[in-house]
């Protein structure tokens, strides 16, 4: 169950739309979840007249009655031409969407409470551009911005969804739609791409320092003093704090060098589940996330000790990601089981 789709059920019910919602639910329930590029085939494109389409039809009816009343051949001709235009427009709107390919793009992890952004890539394999395709969540209320996809090229679009809980956030069903060229018809397709976003627990409020664990590190402040023993230089890795860069060697070497300080294992900060205050699992996780973030900002080596996982002390972006991921997925069923 994903977040975006849960909004469907919480929408204010409207008696007139009840039937439509039932039909939508039935159709949406049958949209298969797919890994790879989804080609929008002909039988997956739905098309209905817009309210302007109905207005156009009404105008044609009035014109037809007028032409009959006046027995005016040119009025008949114009009415029939516009009637033909409406039918032709239906095919053009349909062709503007059909054979488009959808792919999942990159999705960056977020913290709970933030908005997750799912990137969707829209491929246009045809030799002619696609105009004014818009991309939203299926049956979402938000109006998506629309874009052109040049011939033989692709276009990326990012869809936002709130991420209230930690763990994997699955993408909801996306809707690609178009009303180009005349706005008389609304053509759309639904696709459920296998996209998911890792949601880290929400960081707790800062202020509470990690507790001193017996025989180990101690508070961040104390541990800092022990870092000052210089032990050598190593290559720069992403995530190293700026102040540890060895600026003097920068002109001489190809890659920046980072000063390394001797750290004994005992002096590294161990973030221990059992020593973390908090009434619930979620509160403890939030606290640990905050400590991970603080330690990372300090450039301090830290390890994570959870009941089922133990991550050795380290630093850098990958280490931080591993720790946050472990916290995000703590005691959650394996991915795939909840699909």
């Amino acid at each position, binding site marked *: 169950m994903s977040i975006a789709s849960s909004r469907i059920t919480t929408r204010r019910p409207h008696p007139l739309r009840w039937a439509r919602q039932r039909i939508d639910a039935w159709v949406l329930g049958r949209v298969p979840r797919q*890994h*790879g*590029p989804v080609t929008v085939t*002909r039988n997956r494109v739905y098309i209905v007249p817009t309210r*302007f389409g109905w*207005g*156009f039809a009404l*105008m044609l009816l009035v*014109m037809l*009655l*007028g*032409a*009959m*009343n*006046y*027995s*005016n*051949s*040119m*009025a*008949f*001709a*114009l*009415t*029939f*031409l*516009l*009637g*033909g*235009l409406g*039918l*032709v427009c239906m*095919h*053009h709107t*349909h*062709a*503007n969407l*059909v*054979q488009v390919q959808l*792919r999942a*793009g*990159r999705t960056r992890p977020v913290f709970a409470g933030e908005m997750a952004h799912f990137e969707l*890539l829209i491929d246009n394999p*045809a*030799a*002619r551009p696609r*105009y*004014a395709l818009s991309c939203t969540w299926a049956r979402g209320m938000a109006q998506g*911005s*629309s*874009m*052109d996809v040049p011939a033989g090229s*692709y276009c*990326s679009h990012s869809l936002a969804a709130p991420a209230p809980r930690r763990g994997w956030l699955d993408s909801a069903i996306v809707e690609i739609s178009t*009303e*180009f*060229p*005349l*706005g008389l018809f609304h053509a759309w397709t639904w696709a459920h791409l*296998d996209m998911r976003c890792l949601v880290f627990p929400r960081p707790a409020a800062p202020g509470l320092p990690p507790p001193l664990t017996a025989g180990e590190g101690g508070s961040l402040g104390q541990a800092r003093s022990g870092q000052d023993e210089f032990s050598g230089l190593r290559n720069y890795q992403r995530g190293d704090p700026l102040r540890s860069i060895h600026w003097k060697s920068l002109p001489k070497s190809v890659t920046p060098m980072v000063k390394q300080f001797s750290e004994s294992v005992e002096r590294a900060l161990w973030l221990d589940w059992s020593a973390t205050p908090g009434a619930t699992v979620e509160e403890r996780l939030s606290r640990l996330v905050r400590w991970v973030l603080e330690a990372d900002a300090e450039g301090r080596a830290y390890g994570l000790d959870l009941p089922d996982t133990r991550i050795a002390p380290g630093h850098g972006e990958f280490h931080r990601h591993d720790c946050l991921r472990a916290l995000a997925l703590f005691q959650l069923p394996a991915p795939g089981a909840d699909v």
Partner: protein
Amino acid sequence: MSDYLPHHALLRLLAVLALVIAPHLLRLPLWESLAVAALLGWRALASARQWALPPQALKLLLASVAFLAVYQFYGRVTGQNAGIALLVLMLSLKLTEMRSRRDVMVVVFLMYFLLVTHFLYSQELWTVLYLLTSSVAITSVLIDAHHPGEPLPLRQSWRMGGVMILQSLPLMLLFFILFPRIPGPLWGLPTDAGPTRSGLSDSMSPGDISQLILSEEVAFRVSFDTRPPPPEQLYWRGPVFTSFNGRTWTASSEDLKRRIPAEIEVLGGEVRYDLTLEPMRSRWLLALDMPDPRRLPDKARVDRNGALVLDRPLIERRQIQGRSFTRYRLDAQADAALLDQDMEYPPWSNPRTQALARQWREQGLDPPRIIDAALRMFREQEFVYTLEPPLLGRHSVDDFLFETRRGFCEHYTSAFVLLMRAADLPARVVTGYQGMEANRFGDYYVVRQSDAHAWAEVWLADRGWVRVDPTAAVSPERIERGARELFEGVRATSGLFGAYTDWRERALMTWDWVNAYWNGWVLGYGPEVQQLFLSFFGLDSVRNMLLALTAGITLVLLWIGAGAFGRAQAPATTERALLLWQRAGRRLARIGYVQRADEGPRDFVERVREREPALEAALDTLLDTYLRLRYAGEQDRALEIRLAAAIKHLRRPRP
């Protein structure tokens, strides 16, 4: 407060709006044309300079003022002219609010609607061009309105609009031909409906100014199935006037009410013809003297005077399959009470004419002699046939007969009929057309407004109503050669100038021929013509028409849809290495790996290899052979076979 359309798109919309309104501006009152032009100009400036649009109260005020102004000018807000004036004003005022897509759509739909109103005034051949151009223009505005952000290049949106209109044309043709037509009107027509054209008048007052006879407009075209009658029998019968007030001849209101048909006995000289009558807002149809009472055109009846009458004025072009007999007997046994009406005249008017007729009667002349006396007077005394007669006074017939003696058919007929009545003979005025002009290009004849004519009928015992044309007594050439030729004089037919006039005449005739077909087959395509045309193809019932229409539309749409779908597909790849690579991509996608847009083949295969060690060998072969075939330029069949074989191994390993 901002506009829905970007500045450029709005300017395009304004230009198209100007195009759609332009033909109406000539017909609208001057103040309205100026107001519309001012609104368009102001709107363009407001968009360029980012002026604020007027507040709600001002817009309401403007709309009310527009409403009142139209009411003031036309005396009403309904009807054809006032309605269009109001529509144009409201459409221009709508420009002051263009904030949402809805506003733009309303403007565009109104533009389409306004386009149709032009055809109430003119349906000539050139309007087709106007229809197509304007449709493409409005459609391109609609395309602009649905393209967010920067508008498409002008050429491109016009091209798209043009393509869509072009594709709609076959559908239009199918609908036009096969959509079952029903005879109109569905409801009452406004009294000012239809184009304003001159035609035969409802009354005749010799001595007033007459312009009709100089008009070169086409009254009707006619083609004959039988031999055309000789010129002296080419009398096209129109309105018949029986009541005279001393100056003006009109149709008797009694006749209109009573609906007693004339008794026509046909004797011979059958003529069959197809007549395409231009709409002249007349209640009379034209027919060659005398129409066959057994085969009357639809919705027409013969009135007491032998004229074909419609219950409603004719505002559309009409095709009539006519059958007439040039030898006939009309009302030989007429009711004496009815004939009395045809002998009435105001006793106080034209005393000298009355005195002359009384003199003939007192001489004991029988009716044919009296007629002869009148005609002899016209022939032997100094009467002149002219299209520019002097104006006549209160006793118009007296003035004409005894003073001016210059006039055309109306004058002679009026004087003649009054003479007959004063001599106690029933007589009446018949108006219509006399003569015709052959179109050498097509096999038909044209009758113009300048062929309008008036003649007299006198009732004689046992013979009924007999046609007498007093104009023929004065100017026999008028009857034999037609009015136009008579007044144009002898044409130069020799030398260079002659060649030029000949060429010009040929061009004019060709143009008239094209117009004749246009009028007959396109504009005259009503229920009757449709029935006639479609019965050639066996589509004589509404059910068959609808079936054929549905089938045709479906076929055309299938064709258009297939074309659009084909263009939506990727162009076919012929390079075999790429096709194989695409096949590999599909297989890998099935087990969860998709090449990202930012990944080359090498990065992609590396990524899969890291996660799927079981596929390592196949993946290595895949990458190696593909790179060699596609990028190193090796053309080797064996490599392709190896690549294809490697692809077969790309599947999730069984646990």
